[in-house]
């Protein structure tokens, strides 16, 4: 087990180095990166001063090492619009983004499993066809458009759900105000429903199809037939014999899904004015506030890498075939 964890940690470290290389390349690809760190009205002297201060006058490898060292100290530079360290701005927005990502994950996985199993058990019926057609459609709808349409229909016309707003849940939890967090949970969920569905619907569709085919494969196995022939109830067969073995591909998919959902969150936050990293990035893009864009992207990548690591370790625990 420990060798596995250490090997996996090393892999993650390499990936993190890769991430810094990629983000460094992204900075350099447009020519002199100094211009990305000064405002448009900066004077020549100011530009020259910034170039020297950030070390952009040095050779590339020195620049990279300095860049990597600054990242190691979580120093992404000063935000051009907020006039304070970019990392601060990003970390303030992080909890809202994580709330939305996790909530959409719950929707994507929590609903995909029952829908997929249901469709597999009713294979070939109209219900199965309906669910699968919906799933096909779900994989073709842009998440932000789904958000806009829900906002128009459920928010503005029916007035069932709020079209924007956010009640923090994670922030009080982290700060140790447990009672406040629990009390605000229902409100928090109320505001999460529409953005959560918008982000999660694509994954829900894809995963429902995956669960269905995974179940169908298992249901065709001999041991399931044996279980049935022993007269065990259908529910017991599905839960104890089939689902237990269909479970592994589902866990793998959870890991892959996180990165995808994070990407979706970035776009959907814009639609619902969700106060997370996505909205921050959007505003930063428009104001060409590069330190904030870089800090956001790298922090999200780190979140993704850490989550993947955790899921891989869980996977190793539940799959006896992974060598420990």
């Amino acid at each position, binding site marked *: 087990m420990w060798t596995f964890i250490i090997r996996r940690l090393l892999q993650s470290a390499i*990936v993190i180095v890769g991430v810094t290389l990629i983000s460094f390349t992204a900075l350099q690809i*447009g020519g002199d990166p100094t211009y990305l760190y000064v405002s448009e009205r900066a004077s020549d002297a100011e530009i020259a001063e910034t170039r020297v201060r950030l070390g952009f006058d040095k050779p590339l490898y020195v620049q990279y090492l300095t860049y990597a060292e600054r990242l190691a100290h979580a120093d992404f530079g000063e935000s051009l619009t907020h006039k304070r360290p970019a990392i601060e701005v990003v970390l303030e927005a992080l909890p809202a983004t994580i709330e939305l990502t996790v909530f959409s994950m719950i929707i994507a996985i929590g609903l995909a499993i029952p829908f997929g199993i249901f469709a597999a058990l009713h294979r070939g019926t109209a219900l199965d066809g309906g669910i699968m057609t919906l799933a096909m459609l779900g994989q073709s709808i842009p998440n*932000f458009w789904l958000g806009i349409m829900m906002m128009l229909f459920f928010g503005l016309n029916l007035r069932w759900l709020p079209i924007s707003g956010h009640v923090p849940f994670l922030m009080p939890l982290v700060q140790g105000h447990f009672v406040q967090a629990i009390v605000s949970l229902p409100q928090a969920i109320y505001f999460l429903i529409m953005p959560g569905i918008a982000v999660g619907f694509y994954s829900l569709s894809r995963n429902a199809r995956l669960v269905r085919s995974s179940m169908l494969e298992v249901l065709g196995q001999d041991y399931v037939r044996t279980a049935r022939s022993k007269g065990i109830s259908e529910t017991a067969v599905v839960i104890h014999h089939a689902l237990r073995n269909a479970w592994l591909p589902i866990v793998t998919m959870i890991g892959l899904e996180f990165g995808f959902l*994070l990407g979706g969150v970035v776009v959907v936050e814009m639609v619902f004015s969700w106060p997370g990293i996505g909205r921050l990035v959007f505003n930063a893009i428009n104001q060409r506030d590069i330190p904030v864009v870089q800090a956001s992207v790298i922090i999200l990548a780190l979140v993704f890498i850490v989550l993947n690591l955790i899921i891989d370790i869980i996977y190793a625990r539940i799959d006896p075939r992974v060598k420990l």
Partner: protein
Amino acid sequence: MSTPINAASIDPTTDTGYFAEKRRFREWSRAWKSMVKAKWPLLAIAILLVVLFAAIFGPLVSPADPNRQNIMLRLADPLTVARNRTFYLLGTDGLGRDIFSRLLYGSRISLLVGICAIAVGGAIGTIAGLVSGYFGGWIDDVIMRIADIQLAFPFILLAIMFLVVLGPGVVNIILVLGIGQWVTYARIVRAQTLSLKQKEFVEAARAIGDRTSVILFRTILPNVVGPLTVIASFNVASVILSEASLSFLGLGVPPSVPTWGSMLAESRDQLLANKWWLAFFPGIAIVLTVLSFNILGDWLRDFFDPRLKQTS
């Protein structure tokens, strides 16, 4: 495979002449029959032909200049007839521009970016996969580790980071989306190449002294085309979605070029006023196009691998 021929056992460099001709004809007619039987792919092709028609002949059939503003006719409802008898089928946007014309022009960007990005990503990925699988060793290691690093990075974030610096532009977005896709192709091609390079016909090609490039591109590559088309079809769908997302974020093409994604971004300002048509029609255009590519991909997968059809 239960198909009449086993693609992997035929050396495409020598598969010519009367029988090959006949075999190809049989393949095409089998494809057509399977498509008619499945029905949905036919609808998908019909929709894609309409989109293609709009993309090519858009300027000829569009009723108005997509960028001409008309302050007097801002936010006109769909089916409005203006005083000068201009007919606004899908209404106008916040600047009084004809939505139907913008939609027609928008199809150009979606298709262009979708197809070119796949060409870029497919080319890089295929070459990387062939080289990686055929040579193995450290080359394989390096290529696959780079692929791992890229996969560890949510793609849209990568695209945002590069496009912010590069600035908007069709070429930039094609390159970024294309480079974002190469890993999928590389992995598939590598896996296929690994098994194909053991086959007799590849060994034979080596034995008669074919150059490596000939073996890679003329002997192995034609046998990988099946899975590649399946991936490409799904990929066009997801690239079109990504392009729409990036345009929505303001990172796509310059604002003067109408795209479905940027139309949706502009519609946000009018949402509270409940001007639904600004957001509805561009979205439907994206959904129909992407759905068609997804349906085609599904059908292609079943067609190339009938075994999968029995389980899914």
